[in-house]
């Protein structure tokens, strides 16, 4: 059934800077690529920690602080402000952090294949989101919903 939105009140927009998001994603990808290529488990653990802190509080998001406190004031990057909620981005970051925690645990436990595989997964999914704006989690979500319906 179609549901029109005509009667809904327009919610006051939340302000969100997409440049901060892109800096965050780029930093995560670059550091994880270095960790993957140079085989540095501690770097995976460091990125996981930064992502966990950033998920818990935007004030603790190190890479976004780098943008807000250094890159933006220096005029190196320009803000790209949009009216949208940051909650889905934080959720995605939290999910990525959870995968990286598992990757770190696997790497420190000597399960290199599993640890590197999970690290590569986060690199690829973050890269797809950064390059194409495509949310892989949303894709999986719809496909699972369709599978449930098909049963």
């Amino acid at each position, binding site marked *: 059934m*179609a549901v*029109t939105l005509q009667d809904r009140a327009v919610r006051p927009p939340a302000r969100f800077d997409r440049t901060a998001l892109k800096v965050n994603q780029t930093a995560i990808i670059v550091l994880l690529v270095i960790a993957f290529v140079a085989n540095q488990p501690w770097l995976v653990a460091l990125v996981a920690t930064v992502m966990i802190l950033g998920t818990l509080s935007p004030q603790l998001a190190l890479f976004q602080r780098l943008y807000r406190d250094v890159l933006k004031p220096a005029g190196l990057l320009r803000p790209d402000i*949009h009216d*949208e909620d940051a909650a889905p981005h934080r959720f995605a970051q939290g999910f990525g952090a959870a995968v990286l925690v598992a990757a770190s645990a696997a790497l420190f436990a000597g399960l290199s294949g599993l640890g590197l595989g999970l690290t590569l997964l986060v690199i690829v999914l973050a890269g*797809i989101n950064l390059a194409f704006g495509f949310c892989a989690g949303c894709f999986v979500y719809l496909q699972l919903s369709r599978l449930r319906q098909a049963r």
Partner: protein
Amino acid sequence: MLERLLILALVGAIVVAVWALLRERQRRRLSALAATSPFADLVPTGRAAVVALTLPSCVECRARQAPAIERLRASLGASIHIVTLSAETHADLVTQLGVLTVPSTVVLDPAGTVCFLNQGFADETRLAQQVAAL
């Protein structure tokens, strides 16, 4: 180290190739739908329309797409139809259009022809530009 660089390059090439194939598939599908009106029973004709395909428990749909759709309606008013459909209830449309993810948005011309399909979040600026391009 060289081996891992090659793995990264290979994975990157595969991702780009798959993305290009999906884009081409979508372009062909929309071309094939040009002579049809898949939303005939759901969206009135006579005005351009934006259809949002969502799922009730999709956070991205609720937190980003729905507010963007509401702001689009606030700016374009009665000049367009805006309709939200469940991707679960309208699984046939999801298949017919080749929708891969939620939220997705479809822009229809006044005759009901599918002109644009956005896979994933599309903000009100992008949707307004697509409506203006009809």
